[in-house]
């Protein structure tokens, strides 16, 4: 038997799975060229027509699937693809060229498409240039059909597969079918890449950033993906398989003990209620939110709408998504955050040395008020459901929130003038994720109805650590005393101004952080839906006076390590019932 090999990558989505490798390649096929005898020209043209028809059937069935599983809005790009496929100009040019040049259809078709792709690739607008991807998407599908090759389409992945790829584009990621895909491993990407977010959203274990992966793995082999430790195991030994089966069993048992907490109230032992809500990225995740007992959507990220559409969705398209989400979650609240996009997604040829310190999120929105207004109109219209709140990302100055509020007010006036219904009492909040916002939160609190602390970015900016950088990622620690002090400052400032304060970073689902956050007086915690039962279990074991005492003592320590040691000790002594959850955290995160 072949020797076992462990391929190390970045753990981005938890869980352990064993499955069959399905290599998803977007590599171009070599298109061959061969002369055709005049008598076979008709046959060649028939072959072309057949391939177009077959391709159309395939695209229609993909469209049908997306329609059913993700929503009609997401299937629109396929309409454009079908039109491109059936474009008469292209079809007629190909037929004519086959007659004139007497070459095989694969070669002629490829050449005609290259011509269009080249013209489109020269366009100044990014959206138009990106259509080149569509041209080759369809073109290669047709050529593969002509050559009798099978497609390695992500939609058609067989059951129990582990997807192995160099990369997965956002539009492909949107098509991943969680009932067939057990795990994902790709060569590029990190924690915040689209594949990572998708994998977490769909609860598919994933390991990213494995260099040279495609050279080491073959289609059809059986591998293990350990999404907790970030490794892929090739040719696992019998012992290893046994080890993982045991681990999986334990995992399932753990989930079973947690399952009652999907339904129990989110209350401390002494009766204080804390809202536990869900962070979601795709509309369809509201199902997870409900399944795990979320008390609302604490963060609906809207970037995905923009990225899958590869451009700004219209007001109507956005409205439909926001409105449906609000209706499905009713009466629970839904907090919709405006685009948190980097400038490179909005403007062609935009590069910057330091995107995290650059032109992004609300900064882009304020510079493109039309873009922002379309989104605000869509959110406001959805607020007619009376359970929608609006949130702005990456506020770092007082002027920004003033300007944003001004724009929002204008949009409201426009809607009112047109007689369009919306909730004029809807709450408006901001993400507090820059140290500057955290420090001047007492001023910002005068302008908003709530704060949501984005602990990941707040930690990254406070500690000046890019967690994606392996050399320094160990410095990223949200228990750093500086981060804890900022969080306390924000909560105090919020409460002094009588507004509520939530937290929606990873810290919200870290059981070790709970006594501190509760002690500080946090009102809401928002997290990935799967973490909800675990957090609720911890919450229900705590009492307010104990948490206040713990949080005060925690603030006295000098290092993140001291804080964590203290918390572990305290939980061991005072809350033995939740030690299991905390220890589990230790296994995975450190």
């Amino acid at each position, binding site marked *: 038997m072949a020797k076992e090999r462990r391929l190390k990558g970045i753990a981005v989505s938890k869980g352990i799975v064993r499955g069959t490798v399905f290599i998803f390649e977007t590599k171009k096929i070599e298109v061959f060229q061969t002369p055709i005898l005049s008598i076979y020209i008709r046959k060649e043209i028939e072959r072309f027509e057949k391939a177009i028809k077959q391709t159309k059937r395939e695209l229609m069935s993909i469209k049908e699937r997306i329609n059913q599983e993700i929503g009609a809005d997401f299937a*629109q*790009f396929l*309409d*454009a693809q079908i*039109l*491109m496929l059936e*474009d*008469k*100009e*292209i079809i007629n040019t190909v037929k004519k060229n086959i007659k004139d040049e007497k070459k095989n259809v694969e070669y002629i078709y490829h050449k005609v498409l290259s011509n*269009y792709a080249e*013209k*489109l690739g*020269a*366009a*100044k*607008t990014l*959206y*138009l240039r990106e*259509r080149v991807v*569509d*041209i080759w998407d369809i073109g290669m599908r047709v050529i593969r059909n002509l050559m009798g090759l099978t497609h390695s389409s992500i939609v058609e992945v067989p059951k129990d597969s582990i997807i192995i790829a160099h990369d997965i584009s956002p539009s492909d990621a949107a098509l991943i079918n969680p009932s067939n895909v057990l795990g994902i491993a790709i060569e590029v990407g990190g924690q915040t890449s689209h594949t990572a977010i998708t994998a977490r959203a769909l609860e598919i274990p994933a390991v990213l950033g494995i260099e040279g992966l495609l050279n080491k793995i073959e289609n059809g082999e059986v591998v293990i993906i350990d999404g907790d430790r970030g490794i892929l195991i090739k040719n696992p030994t019998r012992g290893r398989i046994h080890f993982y089966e045991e681990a999986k069993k334990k995992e399932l048992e753990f989930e079973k003990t947690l399952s009652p907490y999907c339904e129990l109230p989110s209350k401390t032992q002494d009766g204080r209620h804390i809202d536990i809500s869900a962070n979601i990225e795709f509309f369809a995740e509201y199902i997870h939110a409900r399944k795990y007992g979320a008390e609302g959507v604490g963060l609906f990220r809207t970037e995905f709408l923009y990225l899958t559409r590869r*451009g*700004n969705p*219209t*007001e*109507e398209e956005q409205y439909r998504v926001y409105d449906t989400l609000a209706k499905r979650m009713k009466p629970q609240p839904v907090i919709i955050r405006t685009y948190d996009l980097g400038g490179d997604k909005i403007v062609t040829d935009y590069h910057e040395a330091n995107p995290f310190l650059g032109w992004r999120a609300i900064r882009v929105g304020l510079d493109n008020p*039309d*873009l922002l207004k379309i989104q605000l109109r869509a959110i406001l219209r959805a607020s007619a459901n009376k359970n929608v709140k609006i949130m702005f990302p990456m506020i770092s100055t007082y002027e920004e929130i003033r300007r944003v509020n001004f724009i929002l007010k204008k949009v409201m006036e426009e809607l009112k003038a047109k007689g369009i219904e919306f909730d004029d009492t809807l709450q408006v909040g901001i993400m507090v994720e820059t140290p500057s916002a955290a420090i001047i939160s007492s001023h910002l609190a005068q302008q908003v109805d709530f704060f949501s602390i984005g602990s990941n970015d707040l930690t990254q900016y406070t500690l000046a650590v890019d967690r994606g950088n392996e050399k320094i990622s160990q410095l990223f620690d949200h228990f750093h005393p500086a981060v804890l002090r900022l969080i306390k400052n924000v909560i105090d400032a919020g409460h002094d101004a009588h507004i509520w304060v939530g937290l929606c970073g990873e810290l919200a689902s870290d059981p070790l952080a709970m006594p501190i956050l509760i002690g500080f007086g946090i009102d809401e915690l928002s997290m990935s839906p799967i973490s909800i039962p675990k957090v609720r279990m911890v919450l229900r074991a705590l009492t307010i006076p104990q948490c206040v005492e713990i949080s005060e003592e925690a603030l006295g320590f000098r290092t993140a390590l001291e804080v964590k040691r203290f918390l572990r000790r305290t939980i061991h002594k005072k809350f033995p019932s939740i030690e299991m959850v905390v220890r589990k955290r230790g296994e995975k995160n450190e």
Partner: protein
Amino acid sequence: MIKKKVTILNEHGLHALPASRFVKHAEKFKSEVKIIKDGIEVSGKSIMGILTLACEKGCTVIVICDGKDEKDAMRDLSKILEGQD
């Protein structure tokens, strides 16, 4: 045959969605439909042709409709080009 100058108002130019809407509408008419930009002429019934014109926001194109239903076609199609989404 009728000709009309139209300015593209869509924020992102004539991208895939409005272009596909244009083609779908153009196909409903018997008239021949052409779009000319900077001297380059493409069929209004070809999405690829339209996309390769790379019509950005603010640029002007000439739409030509030629056939029995040219008036209806022009009315319908120029509305799409002037649309905001």
